[in-house]
């Protein structure tokens, strides 16, 4: 039997009819056409499919769409506002936090969950918070830098991307 569910994704409400076995990630990608959320391992390990459900990072390959009935969902497409990149997106850009980019949306969503709880995480706290996300290209160093960059931006601090000279007068 199919179920009619209502989900709000990136602020837009959708009423959709789903089969119970449809995964949340399949709803997001195949039904709603938001392909920024990726499927990597499909076994709750790699974190590429991470989205926020009611504000918490979850692996959308390990949740049925019917379970999300009535929930608020944010995907990577929902982070930027008015052409303005989210500080995390900016951080990944400035700090070269990606190579192939496949894992990036999931890592950004996991990091966004961390920064809500801990606005000034240490390097070790960032690495621990990324335990559920795999990157097979970068070795994580620039990802950690990107998240520290975003954290500083979100705390309202001036940040200077690596490799760029500090602007005159910056503290």
């Amino acid at each position: 039997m199919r179920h009619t569910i209502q989900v709000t994704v990136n602020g837009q409400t959708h009423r959709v009819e789903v089969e119970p076995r449809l995964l949340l990630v399949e709803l997001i990608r195949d039904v709603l056409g938001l392909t920024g959320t990726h499927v990597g391992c499909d076994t709750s390990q790699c974190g590429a499919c991470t989205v926020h459900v009611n504000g918490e990072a979850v692996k959308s390959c390990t949740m049925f769409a019917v379970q999300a009935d009535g929930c608020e969902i944010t995907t990577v497409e929902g982070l930027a506002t008015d052409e303005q990149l989210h500080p995390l997106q900016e951080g990944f850009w400035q700090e070269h936090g990606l190579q192939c980019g496949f894992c990036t949306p999931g890592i950004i969503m996991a990091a966004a969950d961390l920064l809500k709880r801990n606005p000034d995480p240490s390097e070790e706290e960032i690495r621990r918070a990324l335990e559920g996300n795999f990157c097979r290209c970068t070795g994580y160093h620039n990802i950690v830098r990107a998240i520290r960059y975003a954290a500083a931006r979100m705390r309202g601090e001036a940040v200077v991307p690596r490799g760029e000279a500090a602007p005159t007068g910056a503290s």
Partner: protein
Amino acid sequence: MIPQTFEYKKAQTIDEALALLREHGDEAKVLAGGHSLIPLMKLRLSTPELLIDIGGIQELSEIREQDGRIELGALVTHRTIEFSELLKQKCPVLPEAAAQIGDPQVRNKGTIGGSLAHADPAADYPAVVLALDAEIEATGPDGRRTIPVRDFFQGLFTTALRPGELLTRVRVPVMPPRSGAAYLKFPNPASRYAVVGVAAFVKLAPDDTCAEVRIGITGAAAAAFRATEAEKRLVGKTIDDRTLTAALEDMVDPDDLLSDLAATAEYRAHLCHVLTRRALRQAFERAHG
């Protein structure tokens, strides 16, 4: 990976969930956080005809302190436990263990009730609730009953829950004065499940010897268990190298332990020994404050 087709019903109350269980029996599975069940369904190792989603039952998401115990609803997530100020103050070993489960995303969805009812031999909580001598509350057609946790884990994925019963709550004691507990695990490098995990609880007597000792072990055997022989040998003693060596000798028999790709039974026995030693030392130090 696509699970086999199933029907889905959302229970709003415990009674609704029990009625659905009564009606559908063996064909149904209870869905809480889904982080054990959904992966099994995707592999088609589990093919229920009906999922009873209890995720929306509000009263099962609460943590409260009552009569010297802390009661956790079955739906309390690992994340809530990890960050609970009440638990950090009154029973800190539980948040310490919760923080070692899976990864942040898994902890956001996985629940204590789901983990205990699933009884994965390598799950983390079983060791901890055994060391804490916790109680499990099951609710069934005849009402509620309390199961001492030492009777709860019966075998591989097998518990003392009866057909038609729902695990509704877990009760752990508030740590008494001059007591301490610790949970340590040797994680599987890929899955982060415990190859072996050991929780130790120590309560000191006025003369600083051990008045009570409990050791819960997960990952090593088909079901989590208490190392009762070693516990007995430590009562009345202080924890030092010599006492530990004597008390923990042959604490487990490799013939009773699991052997797999991650570790042989002999290696698991070795890990039991090493981790119990470390966990007891930490618990003992914490008991001294």
